[in-house]
């Protein structure tokens, strides 16, 4: 046991004396959380719009007023003619032009219908969609309020409620995703690199010749990273809550326990990588490409799995982060207990066992 403690102490010396390792361990998680927090967002705010009002009557002014009053839009320019429309899209950062047809109020009063044209810059398709939806919503809201005065013959009014995330905030999406990504990276990449380093330097052989058992060497190498990754998990939960208002509606203990499970899984994956990789570079390369990209793309972190082609959907089923994200979303957002995530938990445990078995097998072959 004393030998073992000495080993762990040595690992901590390595970590705390290497500025690069420290940066990866503590700088990157915080930076990534902040970057994702401010970049991965599906909300639009302060979008620049231009208005071409060919009618200039009370109704168009009122609608314009409503649009500007919302948080979403800023009126940047009043256009005078059609020819300016293309120009403002090309030169300015205007994302939408709203066009009222001539004699707007008059037509509305006389025929009961008038036209507004919404032209959006669809070079960014998602944003364009959002902007147009927001604008339409504001306009129909206005129309409905006007209609209250009159009696409508028939009306169906769907009442929409977004449960678990009433205001459709994107933090609900990226905090779990970032957590999965960072724990995966820190645990798997850092352990595989640190084991590969011992191999590269030749110290691994000296350790294997010593009375330490291979299992002790491996466990001694991963324990510090369990501790550090766990600190990272806590940091993300706290920062997510303080800065982005991400709630923890379920049990914090369960959340931390599941994080610990995911960390162990990522570590066992890191060990497996290190049995394949002979040098630190190879270990880093495998970790980045085999772990980081799939975690971002295929785990449901950013892109919905349901929309993927069947082949990619099947691949996503073997991505550990997918299950972890489901689990922590359940706990943090829906506030559900273990009863609702036990299946995913079992999948993670099973995956971990497979990685450990494979590593042990690989390790033995290497010793032959």
């Amino acid at each position, binding site marked *: 046991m*004393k*030998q073992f403690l*000495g*080993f762990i*102490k*040595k690992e901590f*010396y*390595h970590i705390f*004396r*290497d500025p690069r390792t420290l940066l990866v361990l503590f700088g990157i998680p915080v930076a990534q959380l902040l970057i994702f927090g401010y970049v991965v967002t599906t909300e639009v705010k302060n979008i620049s719009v231009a208005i071409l009002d060919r009618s200039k009557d009370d109704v168009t002014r009122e609608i314009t007023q409503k649009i500007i009053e919302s948080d979403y839009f800023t009126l940047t320019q009043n256009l005078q003619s059609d020819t300016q429309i293309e120009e403002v899209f090309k030169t300015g950062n205007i994302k939408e032009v709203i066009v009222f047809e001539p004699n707007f109020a008059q037509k509305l009063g006389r025929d009961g219908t008038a036209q507004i044209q919404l032209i959006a810059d669809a070079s960014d398709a998602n944003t364009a969609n959002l902007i147009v939806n927001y604008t339409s919503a504001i306009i129909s809201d206005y129309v409905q309020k006007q209609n209250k005065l009159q009696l409508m013959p028939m009306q169906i009014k769907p009442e929409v409620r977004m449960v678990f995330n009433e205001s459709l905030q994107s933090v609900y999406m990226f905090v779990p995703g970032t957590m999965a990504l960072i724990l995966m990276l820190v645990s798997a990449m850092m352990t595989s690199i640190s084991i590969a380093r011992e191999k590269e*330097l*030749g*110290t691994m*052989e*000296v*350790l*294997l*010749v*010593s*009375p*330490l058992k291979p299992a002790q060497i491996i466990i001694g190498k991963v324990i510090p990273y369990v501790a550090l990754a766990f600190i990272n998990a806590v940091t993300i939960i706290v920062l997510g809550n303080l800065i982005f208002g991400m709630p923890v509606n379920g049990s914090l203990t369960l959340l931390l326990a599941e994080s610990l499970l995911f960390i162990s899984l990522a570590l066992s994956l890191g060990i497996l990588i290190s049995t394949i990789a002979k040098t630190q570079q190879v270990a880093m390369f495998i970790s980045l490409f085999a772990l980081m990209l799939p975690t971002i793309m295929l785990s449901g972190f950013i892109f919905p799995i349901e929309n993927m082609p069947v082949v990619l959907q099947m691949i996503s089923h073997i991505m550990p982060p997918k299950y972890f994200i489901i689990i922590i979303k359940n706990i943090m957002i829906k506030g559900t207990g273990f009863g609702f995530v036990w299946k995913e938990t079992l999948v993670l445990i099973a995956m971990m066992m497979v990685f450990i078995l494979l590593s042990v097998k690989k390790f033995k072959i290497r*010793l*032959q």
Partner: protein
Amino acid sequence: MTNKPIIKVENLVKKFGNFVANDHLNFEVYEGEIFGFLGANGAGKTTAIRILCGLSTPTSGNLNVAGFDIYKQTELIKRNIGYMSQKFSLYENLTLKENIRFYAGIYGLSSKEINKRMDNLLETLKIGDLRDKLIGSLPLGWKQKLAFSVAIFHRPRIVFLDEPTGGVDPITRRQFWDLIYQAANDGITIFVTTHYMDEAEYCDRVSIMVDGRIEALDTPAGLKKTYKVSNMDEVFLKLARAS
């Protein structure tokens, strides 16, 4: 030096697929001697040394190291041997003291014992002021000597040195061999592989491997007499060319 064998190797065979790295090796190493294990690159030296250290398992053969069976008593063997590979094996970002504490610690030495031996070592090498220096900041020659001192810090009965002096200047090599003699005087058996034929002359006995077989095993003087040449270089060339 006694004539009591501390390493006994009978019919050691190691195959990698169809390739025979060690082809029926037979030799004994006596307690307290400096045993040179020579051979060209790829002759199978490192394979054999790895098997003797327990880093690899033989395909067949009877092996006994420090009185223990290599198949059944690996753990006991490990407690009684030291190993220094051709790669430098101290941790660069640990100080000398931390390196010694770490390596001595994994052999189960008590803190008190470690401190006592460390003081002794630093005094003998006259490097008390290097105690708290990071290993990475020391010149290569010192690192090499320290790596050896650390490899025998737990006082093993045998120390295996796999090309310990690669890439080191002649003066440091000479100093390194002084340390080896010192260890041999203290009763540690030295099993050393090398490329340098002048180093072969320092050994009590040498074996020369060619293509996975031991072609010759004798004292340097005996070998020179047998092959009727004046130095070990020529012995080696004669044997290597004959194949």
